[in-house]
Structures are given as C-alpha cells and as structure tokens.
C-alpha cells in the first residue's frame, strides 16, 4: 500500500475515534464550546485529507457533517441525541469506507447512494425541514437530486448560443442531438454562501465544466449597493450549457452535488445565426414567400427558394447563416413546421430565434418569467427587508470569522522575526472589519495592536475585540494550535497525545510539554524488535552454561570467571533493553476503554435502559498484546451487565434504586499484575438459581446441586452452554458469552473472579499479567524431562512426606495449612506410567498451582530454576495439543515444553 495512504488510514482512524469521543462528550456537556470546536477541527482535517486521496463520497459526508457542526456551533440548531446519532452514523460510514480502502487500497463498492442517504439525513436535520425526531435513514435512499427537485427559478426562458462555438460545430451538435446521439444539458449551480471560506471559486468551477458551450451568472435576488455589499458571501448563481454526458457533469461537480442541478434542454438553443449584418427589407420578400410555401406544405419550393438566395449571398453574411440553418431544419426535421416558421420570423425581424429552453415534456422547473434585475430598485429593497435583517446577523458572524482568522495568523507570527509586515496586514484587516461595523474606538484598537507587537501577548486585544464583536470562541483553540505549530511537533503525533485546550492566559512555561516529540511506528516493527530482544535474553542464558563447561570439562577456571563477568554485563544491558522495549509496548488501558462510551450509549438506548458508564484508571499501562486481547472479553462483560445486570428504569425505581444504572470500568495495577473490573449496580446473581438452572440443563449432577458452595455456584456461569436469560436477546444471552470470556482471559494468562450481592450488583475482576512477551516460568523435572510451569500459576513449592498424603474418596489429598488440597501426579496427568520419585527423606516435590479459584498440588520429581523465556506457541499439528502453552529454547539450546496447567487438569477431569 502507498505509504501516504497507509498514513491517511491510520490517522483517519485515530481521528474517527476522537470524533466519536467528542460527540459523546458534547452530548453530555453542551455548554462546553471547546468540544464542538475541537470536533469541528478534526472533521475538517479528516475532510481535507480525504479530499487529497479523492474519495468524494467520504469527503461529501464529512463536508455535510461539518456543515451540521457549524450550525450547532453557531447555535442555529440545538444539539440533540438525534444529531449525535446522525453524526455517529455518518462517522461509522466513513469508518466502513476506511476499512474498504485499508483492505483493497481503494474503494471496491459504490458508496454513492449510501453517502447520499447520510447527506440527505444530515441536510434535513440541518435545514429543520422535518422534525428532528422524525429523521430516519430511508430504507432505499433516494438520489441526491432530491433537494434540487424543488422548484427552481431560472431567470431566463431561452438562450441563443451564438458566440462560443462556430456555426458548423453548432449544426453538427444539433444533428447529433436530434438523432439522440448526445444531449444538451443546462447546469444550474447555486453555490453556498460560505463557499469562499472553503477555498472554493464557483466561477472557476463552472468555467471548467466539460464541453461547456455557453454560460452566464445572475445575482441571487438583488445585489446590494457597493456600500452594503458583503463580497465574502457568494450570492451569484451560475448557468452553463454543456454537451457533455450527464455522468461527466456529475463527476465534475461530485464534491458539491447538492448545489448543482443538471437538466436536459432543447437542442434548438443551438440555432443561432452568425455573420455580417447586411441587408433588411430585401429579405422581407423571401420570408413572405417562404411562409406561404411552408403553410402550403411545399417544403421543396421553400428549400429551393432558400438555396437560391443562399447561392446569391456572401457566405459570411448573417442571412447566409440563417439560411443554412433553415435548410438544415428543412432537411433534418421537416415535420417541425413551427420551428421552421420561427426561423423565418427571426430572419424577418433580423434577430436570433429564441426557442424555449426546455422541451415541454421535459420542463423541470418553475421558470421565473421575470427577467433578473441587477440594479436594485427602491421597491426591491422594501420587499427584501426581512432578508436584510438576516444578513446583518450573518454579517456579524462573518466579521467574527474574519477577526478570528486574522488573530490566528497574528498568533502564528508573534514570535517570528521579520513578519511585522504580515502582522500589520492582519491588523489592517481587523481594522477594516471594525470600520465596517462602525466601531468608533479605532484609536484604542491601534493602541492595543501596538501593545500586541510590543508584548507579544494577544490576551488584551482578544478581550477588547470580544466586547465589540461578541465572543471569539475559537481563539483558545487557535492559540493552542499556534503552540502546537511553534513546537514543530511532527504532523503525525501519537493519537493519545492530543494537546489539551490552552487558555490564552496560560503562561508560556507550560509549553515545555510540547517539546516532547512523538514518533508513530508500525506495530510490526516493535513486535520484531521485541522478538529479537527476546532471543537475546534467552541466548545470554547460554553464557553461564558455557562458563560451567569451561570450568568443569576443560578446567579453565579463569576463562569461566571472565565469562561470568561478561555475562553480568550482557545481562545488565539485555535487561535494560528488555525494560526499554517493554515500556515502548506499554499502552494505556484507556485505548480499550475508549470504545465503551459509545457501546453503552447505543445498547442502553436500544434496551431502553438508563445507564451511566464510569471509567477509572484509564492511564494504567499494560503491554499492548494484553490490551489487544482485552477488548473482546470486556465487550462481553459490559454487554452482559447492561442486558442482564442493570434493571429497567421502572424496576429500579420500584426497588428504590436510582433510575439510572451505573457500570464502572476500572483498571489498576496490583504488584505485578493488572486488575480490570467491570462492576454494575444491577440485580446481582443468585447462586441457588444458577445451580438450579445448571442442574436443569444437565450441566451439574444432583449431588453437585446440593454440594456446590455459593462461589462454586456462581462460577457455573463460566461453563460452556450456560445461560440464565429466559429469552436470548440479540445483544447477549445465548450462553456462549461467559465461557468465551473465561477462555479468552485464560489465553492471555489471566484469571477471572466474580463477586455478586443479590439486588446490589455484580463485579467481574480480571487479573491480567502486565506483559505477555516474556514469560517467567518455573522449570521442573519429571521422568527425567524438563517442563515449564508459568510462575503466574504457581502458588508455592514444597517437599511433602509421602506418608502424609491421604486418600479421600479415591483422591489423593494433603492438608496444607489446615486446607485440604487435592494432589495429582504430573506423570499420571501426562500419561507417563512411571511413579513419581521421592528424595532421600521420602518426600515428594509438590508444586501448588491455581485451578479454577482453588489450589491443586502437582507431584513432580524435582525443581530446577526459574527463567525468563519467550514463549512460542505450538504450531501446525502440534497446535491442537492444548495441554502445552508453548515452547521455549533454554540456554543450552534444549527445548522446554511449557505446560498449560489449567488445560492439563481440565483434560484429566473430563
């Protein structure tokens, strides 16, 4: 994939994530204008980037979203849940496009209709055309022409294309058009008023229309006097006739389809006469005679008469052109007498014929019969009064925009030498704005401007300007971006480190943080580095082995000593290296948590429950592999909590609980592992009910029904096929959730615990290793083979006298600190028919391990050492051997099989 495109995708995904978060944050806190400004900024960036790669459907949806955000920002429409939904849907759509691009380097599906549906929905909310709450995506989206289908006023009824193409070209086109080989189209382009701020130039755009043969522009309504003219707002409408295919025209205007209407027009507009005007009455006779022939249906005589006159006329004359057209019409469309007559009348009146623009059947719009008035009349002004009032408000917002932009530029240049000229120009522009709104304190403005130049501080000027033109909310953000630019931070910064909003009054000292530079690196490169360091850590373990051989086998004690010394150095460096790379791999748990506000919002609305999500400890750092693996289990847990845990609002109210349920997602570090908790204040779980259900489903025996402890009963939910929900919803409750969660957590070397209080709520506690890359294993020996057991599983090791092992109900057990612990022979578990060995004192070596919240002792032949290894999962046919977690290479080059104790004991129990 093109590197730039890959960067675009990665950056856009980060942006989408941030947009989603900001929308949810703004939904909760409408008053915080910084959020909407930030939102607007990100959407704008995303739109700009998508434009670079020419994904018009994406750009258009983002453009429409941006417009909606502007309307919200300017308080033209109040923010609502529906707006949030619409924007989130639109962003999901953009995400879908990104997925497609990421998978195929380009868009493989035509998304235009879907994009149109989103744009239409956004547009309807923005225009308030329909009640906001009634907005819904139509099942079958209509085409984008819909907004344009509304009656449109065209300020002319006919045109005569006489100057841009030659007569020969016009006639050829005419023939093609009447033969149906091409269609003439009128493009009606109504640019939006704010288009200049988006860098658009409608006049340029329309002039570039493919195969344009005629064009003009009319002011929208009445152009005001120069004094009142707001030239930063586009109020011109453009009209262009083109012989291009409609698809080509649609493609040309693909970024602004909602502003353009393309209509087929009659080919008769091509009938226009060129040439030297010469003559007059002499042709009168011809016309009189010709009309007679026409009325009598004698086209042959008419043709002969016209041809004769043409032969006698100079080809460059206007009349010759008219006669050539006449002959063409007689030849090609003899049946259209009225057209021929109109040409004859045009010759008589010495003017170009004016055929109607649209064929009657095709006439698409209400055509204003009134010609456009360019110069304003007194009456017009009176009629336009309400519009003027609106314009005043718009004008103020434009002035605010201009001032904000100028302040931004000043901010960027403040500390750069040699930019005084640019700053003066900006001050001049602001002064112009102040003059335009008749501000009388221009002297004060100039003093403040001078002060800015002297002190390099914008604060005072901004405050004063706000008293004149109203709030300038963007300035905080603008200043922020100014800092960001000053610090020359690379463009593609780490997504987590979005600079926080900095108020103008914040002292400059805070900028030291921004000098931190971030580098965005492909994950696979870090993984590769990690693998290499892992190899290094393992291969360094060969040095003590070599030292041992040097001493014992070759008897070179000195060399052995030196080797050990070198090993200490390499060991230290390798450990530092390992620590360093570990830190690089550490990412905040917040990365996984980010997706939950949206999930909780959508699910709770779907289930008609009120749920608040509280996130804690998002900064807790975990290895990225753990973070990646954590997503799925957490989704299951949170879904379950909303679906089964939290009661409906009515039930909660009846029980005297707060109507709004709370789900707490918390992460924290505990000594050498990470704890992630999902806690809800819902109905909790009843162990007795769970036992009964499990019994009914045949998952437990009747004996177990009575003997299982409360905790064991609760753990039943982790058994495959267990589900308590009477009806499975489409969200959760199909009985595959909790066992899937458990196996996923097991897979990453973690454990899951459950605590519940009936009626009060449930807490799931996930204990996870901080890192997965380097595994700390205890090497044990049995039947003269070495095996590894992950240290995370090991509770303790001990020597236990053989005679103290007692048999209870055919199970070997020991009593360890007043607790009965079942004992298994590892040889037996591994299918080895060799009895375990004891030492000289007739003691067994026991490894006590965790198993399903209990402790189990394994009899082994002996303990070796504890080593750090890089665990490689078994591959190929070996991958199905679940009792092994993987393999590792030891210092002497031998392979160590690492046992999955959980699986081993589980396999034995079934």
């Amino acid at each position, binding site marked *: 994939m093109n590197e730039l495109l890959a960067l675009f995708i990665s950056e856009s995904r980060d942006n989408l994530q941030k947009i989603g978060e900001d929308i949810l944050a703004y939904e909760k806190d409408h008053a915080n204008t910084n959020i909407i400004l930030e939102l607007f900024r990100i959407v704008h960036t995303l739109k700009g980037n998508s434009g670079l790669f020419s994904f018009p459907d994406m750009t258009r949806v983002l453009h429409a979203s941006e417009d909606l955000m502007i309307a919200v920002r300017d308080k033209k429409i109040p923010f609502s849940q529906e707006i949030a939904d619409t924007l989130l849907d639109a962003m999901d759509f953009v995400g879908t496009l990104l997925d497609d691009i990421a998978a195929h380097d380009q868009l493989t599906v035509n998304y235009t209709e879907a994009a149109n549906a989103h744009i239409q929905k956004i547009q309807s909310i923005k225009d308030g055309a329909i009640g906001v709450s009634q907005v819904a995506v139509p099942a079958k989206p209509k085409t984008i022409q819909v907004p344009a289908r509304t009656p449109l006023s065209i300020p002319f009824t006919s045109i005569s294309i006489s*100057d*841009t193409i030659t007569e020969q070209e016009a006639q050829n086109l005419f023939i093609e058009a009447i033969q149906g080989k091409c269609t003439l189209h009128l493009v009606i382009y109504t*640019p939006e008023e704010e288009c*200049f701020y988006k860098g658009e*130039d*409608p*006049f*340029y755009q329309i*002039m570039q229309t493919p195969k*344009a043969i*005629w*064009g*003009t*522009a009319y*002011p929208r309504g009445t*152009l*005001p*006097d*120069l*004094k009142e*003219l707001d*030239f*930063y707002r*586009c*109020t*011109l409408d453009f009209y262009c006739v083109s012989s291009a295919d409609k698809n080509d025209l649609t493609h040309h205007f693909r970024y602004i389809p909602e502003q353009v209407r393309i209509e087929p027009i009659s080919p008769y507009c091509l009938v226009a006469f060129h040439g030297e005007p010469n003559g007059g009455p002499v042709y009168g006779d011809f016309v009189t005679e010709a009309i007679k022939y026409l009325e009598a249906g004698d086209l042959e005589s008419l043709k002969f008469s016209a041809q004769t006159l043409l032969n006698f006329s100079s080809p460059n004359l206007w009349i010759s052109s008219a006669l050539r057209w006449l002959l063409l019409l007689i030849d090609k469309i003899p049946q259209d007498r009225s057209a021929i007559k109109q040409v004859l009348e045009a010759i008589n009146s010495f003017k170009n014929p004016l055929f109607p623009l649209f064929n009657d059947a095709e006439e698409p719009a209400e055509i204003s019969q009134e010609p*456009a008035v*360019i*110069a304003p009349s007194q009456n017009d002004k009176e009629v336009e009064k309400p519009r003027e009032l609106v314009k005043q408000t718009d004008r103020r917002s434009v002035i605010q925009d201009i001032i904000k932009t100028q302040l931004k530029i000043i901010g960027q240049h403040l500390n750069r030498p040699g930019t005084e000229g640019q700053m003066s120009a900006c001050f001049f522009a602001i002064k*112009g704005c102040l003059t335009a709104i008749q501000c009388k304190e221009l002297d004060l403005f100039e003093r403040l401007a001078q002060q800015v130049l002297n002190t390099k501080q914008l604060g005072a000027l901004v405050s004063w300007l706000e008293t004149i033109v109203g709030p300038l909310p963007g300035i905080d953000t603008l200043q922020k971006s100014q800092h960001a630019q000053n610090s020359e931070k690379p463009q593609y910064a780490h997504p987590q480190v979005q600079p926080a909003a900095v108020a103008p009054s914040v002292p400059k000292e805070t900028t030291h943080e921004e000098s931190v530079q971030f580098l965005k690196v492909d994950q696979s490169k870090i993984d590769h580095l990690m693998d290499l360091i892992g190899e290094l850590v393992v291969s360094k373990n060969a040095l003590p082995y070599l030292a041992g051989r040097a001493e014992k086998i070759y008897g070179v004690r000195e060399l052995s000593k030196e080797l050990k010394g070198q090993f200490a150095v390499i060991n230290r460096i390798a450990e530092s290296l390992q620590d360093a790379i570990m830190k690089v791999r550490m990412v905040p748990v917040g990365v996984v948590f980010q997706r939950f506000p949206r999930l909780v919002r959508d699910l709770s609305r779907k289930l008609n429950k009120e749920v608040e999500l509280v996130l804690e400890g998002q900064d807790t750092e975990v290895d990225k592999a753990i973070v990646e693996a954590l997503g799925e289990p957490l989704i299951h847990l949170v879904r379950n909590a909303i679906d089964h845990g939290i009661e409906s609002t009515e039930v909660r109210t009846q029980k005297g609980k707060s109507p709004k349920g709370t789900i707490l997602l918390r992460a924290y570090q505990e000594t050498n592992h990470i704890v992630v908790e999902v806690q809800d204040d819902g109905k909790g779980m009843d162990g007795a009910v769970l036992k009964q259900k499990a019994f009914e489903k045949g998952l437990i025996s009747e004996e177990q029904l009575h003997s299982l402890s409360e905790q064991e009963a609760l753990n039943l939910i982790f058994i495959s096929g267990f589900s308590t929900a009477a009806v499975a919803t489409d969200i959760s409750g199909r009985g595959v959730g909790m066992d899937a969660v458990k196996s996923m957590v097991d897979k990453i070397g973690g454990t899951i615990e459950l605590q519940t209080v009936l009626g009060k709520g449930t807490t799931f506690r996930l204990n996870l290793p901080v890192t997965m890359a380097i595994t700390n294993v205890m090497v044990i020996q049995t039947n003269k083979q070495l095996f590894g057991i992950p240290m995370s599983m090991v509770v303790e090791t001990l020597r236990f006298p053989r005679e103290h092992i007692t048999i209870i109900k055919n199970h070997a057990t020991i009593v360890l600190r007043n607790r009965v612990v079942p004992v298994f022979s590892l040889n037996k578990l591994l299918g080895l028919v060799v009895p375990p060995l004891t030492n000289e004192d007739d003691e067994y070596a026991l490894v006590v391990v965790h198993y399903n919240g209990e402790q189990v002792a394994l009899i082994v032949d002996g303990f070796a050492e504890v080593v750090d290894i890089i665990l490689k999962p078994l591959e190929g046919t070996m991958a199905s051997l679940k009792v092994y977690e993987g393999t590792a290479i030891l210092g002497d080059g031998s392979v160590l099989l690492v046992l999955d104790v959980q699986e081993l004991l589980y396999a034995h129990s079934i």
Partner: protein
Amino acid sequence: MPIVYKKSKAFFQEQVSAEEAEALLEWLQKTKHGEIDFTKAKHIHTAVLQVLLAGDIRISVWPEVTSLRSWLQHIFEKKHTK
C-alpha cells in the same frame, strides 16, 4: 499586481484572486463610472465578479481569452452595452 488602478481605469491582469475584492470595492466607491480593461485577465474570482456586478462600471476591453470573454459578455451585457 492582478489589478492596476490608473485614475478612472482598472486593468485586470492574469489571475485576479478573492484578495483583490476589497481594494476593488474601495476603488469603485471612489471612482464613478470606473472603466475596466480585461485585456490581460485570465481568470476573475467570484468575489471580484460580484463586486464588479454591484458596481457602476463600464467595460472598455473584453479579455483576450475566449472562454472568459464569452462568459463575461453574457454576464455583463445583460447590464451594460458599450
């Protein structure tokens, strides 16, 4: 300079961008019946076009570039006939 102002005449040259609109507006406010010479103009930004349409101008020369000339003639000849 995309627009050169000489007494009552403004000469448009090359690409006339939106930034010229303000100065043109000021000039038109000061200059009654200002004359516009489009000879060397290659393109005129919409904002500038709007100012010209709102102003009291006379067009003395149309652009040499055919397409721009044709567009401007259609736009302005509705209002002015030289």
